Structure formats: structure tokens, C-alpha cells
């Protein structure tokens, strides 16, 4: 019951935020450009095409009417047509979504599985060699440009050592498309070649994307565990002679992890921001690469659609994380 109240509460924030995002993209695409129509028509349009578009898109109507039309259109899934591919943008984006999601989830998974235990050990063995080494690594991880790291990985692993593929998502056609996630689909239809190819292509992009995310997770987990270790309840547990393994892996970890969960929203922000450039470097056919191509082709509509969809995705992730946090932290139910 209180979970329901929690969800409703968060939705109250979520919907206006989403609408606000739409208003922002509207402003960027309709208000900022000197001539929004020329903007939509692209660099190569003729004056007649521009005029035709002006009427067709209702860009001769007053601004507030345009806004309303825009909002209505977006909620119905109409994000306009790509100048480059001539297809509805929503279709293009939907087709690209699974690739980005698969990459992002792998990155989250990897950075959490590796990052959390490292953070715990860094805290327990504070000021040890491991702790200092991790500190150097995490600071570096947050200072490296993702696109540069991607190129370095390519140079080293794909070009020099030749142990991973250079780019792309898979060799050949890939498995039968059921979910759009190559790994899942390969497993479902038992297509082992596709599975192997998909996995090997995932290695470098995932590593690149996960690097800064892992750095953040290690830092936050370490801080959370240290906080817990220095707390009064750990002192009490120690004073009452509870085994230290119990204290760390049951009591401290739960407290630290609750803090880490809220960071997942932050992590996703890093990942989505990184996805754009990482997909560009690895030729990964996801939303990021779509955005890059749209930039190159001056496909303004597509960029707006991309902004809206990625922004909305990020907002949704934060909503879910918020709700999750409310559910697992008993203190928020006060």
C-alpha cells in the first residue's frame, strides 16, 4: 500500500518533468533557430520545399498553438520524419534502442559486479596498497575522455593484439530477432555462433563505457562502507562481540548498498552520456550512433527526437531508482 503511495508520489514529479523536457526540446527546435522551417527542411532544401513544409507542419501558426500541437504529436509518438532516412524518427529510434540498452545494461552489470566488492575492500583495507591503487585508478578513470579510451582500447586490443573485433555489434546477420537483445536471442534459439560473436563484440564497448561508471561506484561504495564502519551501530556490534564477517557482509554492506542504489541514477547518466561517443567509435548501431549520424547529416529533426527519447529514458530510469530506493530503505517510510 505504501509502495503505491510512493509510486504515485514520484509520478507527480515525473510527468511534469517529462512535459518540461518536451517544452525544452520544443524551444530548442522551434524558438532558437532563426528560421525553424529551414531548420527542419535541412541544408539542401529548395525555397518551395521550405514553403510546403511551413504549411504542412503548421509552422505559420502562433507559437503557443505550435507548442500544443508539438506536445500532442510527441505523446502520440510522432517525432517527425528524418530528413536523411525519410522514415519516421520514432521508428528509427525504436529500431536502435535494443542495441544501446544491451550495451548499457552490460556496462551497469559489469561495473557493479566489479566495482562494489572493490569499493568494500578499499574501505576495509583503508590506506593499504589496494586502497591507494584504486584511488589512483578511479581518479584516472574519471579524467579520461571516453572516446579517447575507446580508441586506445581499439588500438591495443583490436589492432595490435587482435584479440577482439574492431567494431560493430556482430558478424553476419545475428540471431533471430525476438527481443532485439542479441545475447538473449542467441540463447533462446541456441545460436552459439551468434552468441560468441555478440559477446566478443560487446567486450571493448562495455569496458570503455563501464570504466568511468566503475570508478564512480568504487568511490561511492568505499565512502558508504567507511561511513558505516565508523558508525555507532558498528561500534555496538563490535562491542557485543559479533563476528566481523557478519558485521561487514551483512550489516555494513546493506547500509552502504542502499546509498549505492541511489547512485545508479548517476551512473546511468554517465553511461548514456558516454554511449554517444562510444557507439560512434565502435560503430555500435544504437541510439548514440544514430545521433552522431544525424549530426553529420544536419538531420535536425532526428537530433530533437534523439534528445527527447534519451532524456525521457534517463528520467524514467531515475524514477525507477527513486522508487526502488524508497522500497528498500526502511527509513523513507517514516
Amino acid at each position, binding site marked *: 500500500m505504501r509502495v503505491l503511495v510512493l509510486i504515485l508520489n514520484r509520478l507527480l514529479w515525473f510527468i511534469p518533468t517529462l512535459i518540461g523536457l518536451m517544452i525544452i526540446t520544443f524551444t530548442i527546435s522551434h524558438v532558437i533557430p532563426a528560421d525553424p522551417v529551414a531548420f527542419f527542411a535541412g541544408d539542401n532544401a529548395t525555397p518551395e520545399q521550405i514553403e510546403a513544409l511551413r504549411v504542412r507542419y503548421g509552422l505559420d501558426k502562433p507559437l503557443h498553438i505550435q507548442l500544443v500541437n508539438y506536445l500532442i504529436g510527441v505523446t502520440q509518438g510522432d517525432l517527425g520524419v528524418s530528413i536523411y532516412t525519410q522514415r519516421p524518427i520514432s521508428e528509427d529510434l525504436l529500431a536502435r534502442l535494443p542495441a544501446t540498452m544491451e550495451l548499457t545494461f552490460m556496462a551497469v552489470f559489469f561495473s557493479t559486479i566489479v566495482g562494489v566488492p572493490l569499493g568494500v575492500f578499499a574501505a576495509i583495507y583503508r590506506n593499504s596498497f589496494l586502497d591507494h591503487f584504486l584511488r589512483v585508478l578511479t581518479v584516472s578513470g574519471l579524467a579520461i575522455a571516453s572516446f579517447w579510451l575507446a580508441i586506445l582500447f581499439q588500438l591495443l586490443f583490436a589492432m595490435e593484439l587482435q584479440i577482439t573485433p574492431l567494431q560493430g555489434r556482430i558478424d553476419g546477420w545475428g540471431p533471430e530477432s525476438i527481443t532485439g537483445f542479441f545475447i538473449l536471442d542467441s540463447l533462446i534459439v541456441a545460436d552459439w555462433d551468434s552468441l560468441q560473436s555478440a559477446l566478443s563484440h560487446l567486450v571493448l564497448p562495455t569496458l570503455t563505457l563501464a570504466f568511468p561508471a566503475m570508478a564512480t561506484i568504487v568511490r561511492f561504495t568505499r565512502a558508504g562502507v567507511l561511513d558505516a564502519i565508523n*558508525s555507532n*551501530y558498528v561500534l555496538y556490534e563490535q562491542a557485543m562481540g*559479533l*563476528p566481523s564477517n557478519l558485521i561487514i557482509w551483512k550489516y555494513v554492506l*546493506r547500509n552502504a548498498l542502499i546509498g549505492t542504489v541511489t547512485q545508479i541514477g548517476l551512473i546511468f547518466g554517465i553511461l548514456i552520456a558516454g554511449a554517444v561517443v562510444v557507439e560512434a567509435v565502435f560503430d555500435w548501431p544504437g541510439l548514440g550512433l544514430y545521433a552522431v549520424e544525424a549530426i553529420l547529416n544536419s538531420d535536425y529533426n532526428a537530433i530533437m527526437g534523439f534528445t527527447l527519447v534519451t532524456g525521457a529514458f534517463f528520467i524514467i530510469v531515475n524514477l525507477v531508482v527513486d522508487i526502488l530506493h524508497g522500497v528498500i530503505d526502511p527509513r523513507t517510510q517514516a
Partner: protein
Amino acid sequence: MGDSLLSVENLHVSFSTENGVAEVLDGVNLSIQTGEIVGLVGESGCGKTTLARSILGVLPKNSAKISDGSIIFDNQNLLDMKDQDIARDIRGRLITFIPQDPFSSFNPVFTIGDQIMDLMKWKYSKHESPWFALRARKKERENNFQRVLELLQTVQLPDPEGILRKYPHEVSGGQRQRIMIAMALLPEPRLIIADEPTTALDVTIQAQILKLLKRLARERNVSVIFTTHDLGAAYEICDRVTVMYAGQEAESASVDKFFEKPRHPYTKSLLGSLPSKSGGLKGIPGQIPALINPPSGCRFHPRCSLASEDCITRRPQVNWPSDDHMVRCYHPKIYD
């Protein structure tokens, strides 16, 4: 001191801080008999909490150092034992702890029941090896559960079962401290170390908790070391009182003698600073010294009107006169 349950002898503890090394305990002595309730009084920073934590062995590992002395519990020097062994056999079994702030001493993301049952499982079981605790059979778990409920009733908590299901923030301060008392009694300890257990509570609740603690300790013949800066509280429940100043113990006597015939100048000033019926508040001139470069000899000498050459050079030795009223001073007050 004969066959005391616990005897702290000449304990020296120092803390390394950013500004230097602080001598927090300067050769402190303390002893307690079975079934005795001893009060450890002193102002903030006098070292009473450090002494309590030293006995338990939970000083901060990186900054605290025990440079000398011994802590004899049940004829064993705890300072000679390995920390693992102390954690397993002594803490939470023979010596238990009641913390100052019951709110932050509970883990906020686990239910109270979770935390108590863990304590039962790991510290109450009669088995030698923790592995047996893990395999506690259903019957034993039920017994444990019953015992917990009984204990919660003993500390006068209504609806013990409901409490077990609650989270720490859902329970009031007084209730939390009662639960802490119950948890301290759970493993059937010989000694409870209560570190300012009522400081964080409302005044009206304080008296209740103190009386409860005293009654239960008496019933079960459990010794209690009770640290406080509240002289009134000490008077309420202690059998004997030891007063500390700036890391040195000054005087130790039975509660009556302590309050009626204090011998140490500091004790006299402390008692004199209590508001009296004749009105007026008398403080003690001067300030508590920093412990990084403390005064030499008796650390109270800068503020003591009776201070002499000896007081500055060498700290007075321990001596136990026949009337069992110990004072470490060159100029104790004599009563006839």
C-alpha cells in the same frame, strides 16, 4: 584488590591526533566486584568513555594505543589475549555493553527483531563453535525467541512481538534504551558496561531507566560499570563511585562516603558546584586541560587551591586505606 571480578591496573592509553599525541588515560586503576554497581563519574573528556571502551577492547585501531597496564577479568589479562578470542568469548557474552545513544547504535535498515535474534544466535548459544549456532535447530530457535520475548517483558516493554517487527526509527527513545538493556542481559553476562546510558534521554525517562537497570542487575547479580557526568544519576543507583579528572582517577569510595565525606579537592569542588538549597552556583575556576600537553603530576594541580610542590612533580600513588575509601591526593580532606 582480592578477588574482584574486573581489575584495571595502571592503564595508559594514548590517542594520536592531528595536533600530537594525547595521553587520554594516565595510569588509571579501577576494580569492581561481582554484583557491584560502580559509577565512573567525571566531566566530558575525563576519559571515562575511553576507559569503558578499553575494557571492551573496542578502541579505534588506528589512533589508539595501550602503552601500559593490565585489565584483569576473571583472573585473565585481557590485554594478553588475541582480539579474535576476546570478541568470541568475552564481548557480548561475559561483558556486555549499553551505549549512550540508543538511536544511532541500532542498525537503521534492519528490524529490531533481526538484530536481537542475531545476538541470540551468535552470543547466547551454549555451543563452543559458531558453526553450531548456524545449525540451531527449530526447537532451539523457538526457545531463543521465547527468551527474547520474556526479556523484553522484563524491561517493561508493551507488545514485545510488535517491537521485534519494528525498525529502530519507529520506536521511542526510552523504549530503545530498554531494548538495549534487554540485549545487554540476553547472554547472561557477568559485567555490563553502560556508557552514559541516560544522557540521550528525556529527564523524566532517565529515572525510570536507571531504576530498571539497577533492579535487574541486582536480581541477576550482574556487575555494572556505569559512566556518567550526572552526579545525581550516580547517587541513584551506584554502590560505589570512582571520579576521574583529565585521564586520572582521583577518588573511589562507597556512594554514601563519596557524597557525604569527599576527600579529593576535585570531588569536593564537583559536589560543591551542585546547586544547593541555600542558592548560588559555585563553579571551579580554570579549565579542563588539553591532553596533548597535560599538566605534570596530578593534573588537577593548576586549579587546586591546595596544590604543592609534590603535586606538580609526581602523581600521588594509589593507596587503599582500611576504610576502603581510596583517594589519590597529597592533601586529602580529613574528617573525624
